[in-house]
């Protein structure tokens, strides 16, 4: 099953075209990586999936994105409901300046003011492997955590909303090698339950974590395939040059 289907998507920032007629199919319950050199449009593409990119008045979009079969550019779509189902994790961990507990509870509280949050918070923190470490200091500020813990927390706070898709925009670029491996291991476990799309600068990381891989260049998708095949036997010469480190 595909969880995201993109057809003929073009996107402009003012006069600059950042995406050119992009069509992709992203499968559910596995990790899909978007790779490519800086400025290739991979983050831009990721940010269209929950329409966070459209806050800027200068952004113009053409084409179609269906998430779980539903067209997200249709005027009837509620961004609130869409973002509840499609959560995002950013490059720099950005915990809210409130307690650890409140960070995880925040999403539930804003959508369902009467929801019971305690159990959901425990479940989410357990899922990301933070519960044992933090259960006795849930009410200290989230911003005091180590970077890796902050990034785990940023993933954890999506979970109480039961999202379908988790988008990650270079989630490890602020972390050291050990923390990166730990987060990758976490993503691997989460992929059993969630569809995960990760943008990464690191080809090694894409190769370690993803089942399928998209290579983008200058706003276009150049090649797409199972990760192992794309890395060992690229069909397009540009893909080969990029993964061989000849540019980018």
């Amino acid at each position, binding site marked *: 099953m595909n969880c995201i289907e993109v057809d003929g998507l073009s996107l402009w920032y003012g006069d600059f075209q950042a995406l050119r007629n992009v069509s992709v199919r992203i499968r559910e319950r596995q990790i899909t990586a978007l790779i490519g050199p800086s400025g290739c449009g991979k983050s831009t593409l990721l940010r269209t999936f929950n329409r966070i990119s459209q806050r800027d008045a200068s952004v113009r979009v053409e084409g179609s994105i269906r998430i779980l079969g539903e067209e997200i550019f249709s005027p009837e779509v509620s*961004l609130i409901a869409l973002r509840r189902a499609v959560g995002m994790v*950013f490059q720099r961990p*950005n915990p809210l*300046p409130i307690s650890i507990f409140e960070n995880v509870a925040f999403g539930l509280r*804003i959508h369902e003011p009467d929801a019971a949050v305690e159990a959901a918070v425990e479940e989410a923190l357990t899922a990301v492997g933070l519960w044992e470490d933090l259960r006795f200091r849930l009410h200290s500020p989230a911003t005091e955590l180590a970077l890796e813990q902050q990034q785990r927390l940023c993933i954890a706070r999506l979970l109480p*909303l039961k999202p379908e898709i988790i988008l990650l925009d270079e989630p490890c670029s602020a972390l050291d090698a050990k923390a990166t491996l730990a987060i990758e291991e976490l993503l691997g476990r989460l992929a059993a339950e969630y569809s995960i799309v990760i943008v990464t600068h690191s080809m090694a990381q894409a190769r370690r974590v993803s089942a399928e891989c998209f290579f983008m260049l200058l706003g276009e998708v150049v090649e797409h395939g199972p990760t192992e095949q794309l890395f060992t036997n690229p069909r397009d010469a540009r893909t080969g040059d990029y993964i061989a480190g000849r540019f980018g």
Partner: protein
Amino acid sequence: MKPALAPSPTTPRFRETPAIARRHRQEVIARRLLGTTLILSLVPLFAILIYLVWQAAPVLSWGFLVESPRDGMRSGGLWPALLGTLYLVGASLAAATPVGVLAAVYLNEYARPGRFSRLVSLAVINLAGVPSIVHALFGLGAFVAFAGFGRSILAASLTLAVMSLPVIIASTTEALKSVPQSFREASWNLGATRWQTTRHIVLPNALPGIFTGIILMVSRTAGETAPVLFTGAVFYKSIAGGDLFAYSLLDQCMALSVHLFTVSTQVPNVSDALPYAIAVVLVATVLGVNALSIALRVYLRSRKNW
């Protein structure tokens, strides 16, 4: 025998040359010049304070604060003026704060960045530069005459409110801008509406800055003379000394700034110390409010998590 790794120094290289010496001299001059200007700007500040208190000393007392003026304002206290200023500042804040803060929230959190919001920001900045005497005239026309409030505390404080609005909007905007964009993104991405984001994330974190801006505005408002002179302040008003509720909103009132002006220039045979004493009370009120602002800021900062 092995050759030496480096030639032994025949002439020392790490010595001050004439060119380096010149740069040292420039450095000394710069340091002294900059230090002197700092002292020059501090001297008047302390000189004013010390001179004021010294001149005012014969008159200053608790009674001076809480009594009404006597003998055609030549003796007694300044309670009606002190209370009038408190009323004017309080009422103008009550009017200007909600409007100014919420307007700034709209500008910063809701309005799409573009030509319109840039134009509004520019207008706000320029409004802050309109001389207070012009606001005074506007208040006289709009509130005293057109709205029919007459010369009153209400008309005067609304005039002061109009005057403070741009400053409050500008300082609130600064405070909102200081909240990192990543907090907003995190909140939006969880499906929070803009209002939820503003209320739960942005406003709590902008609060110290917003308070500071408002309270600094108080100290400016307290000293304004022209607007209140045009729209509601009187030469003399008899109220009971120490009575906190002596004025109603539609009364005229005395104000410290106007009182200082009239006692200094309009009343013959006033003791030399009296105007200085009024000035000391005015300055002390303003400094007191500023100290409150600093204390509040320190307190709220200490609770901040980023």
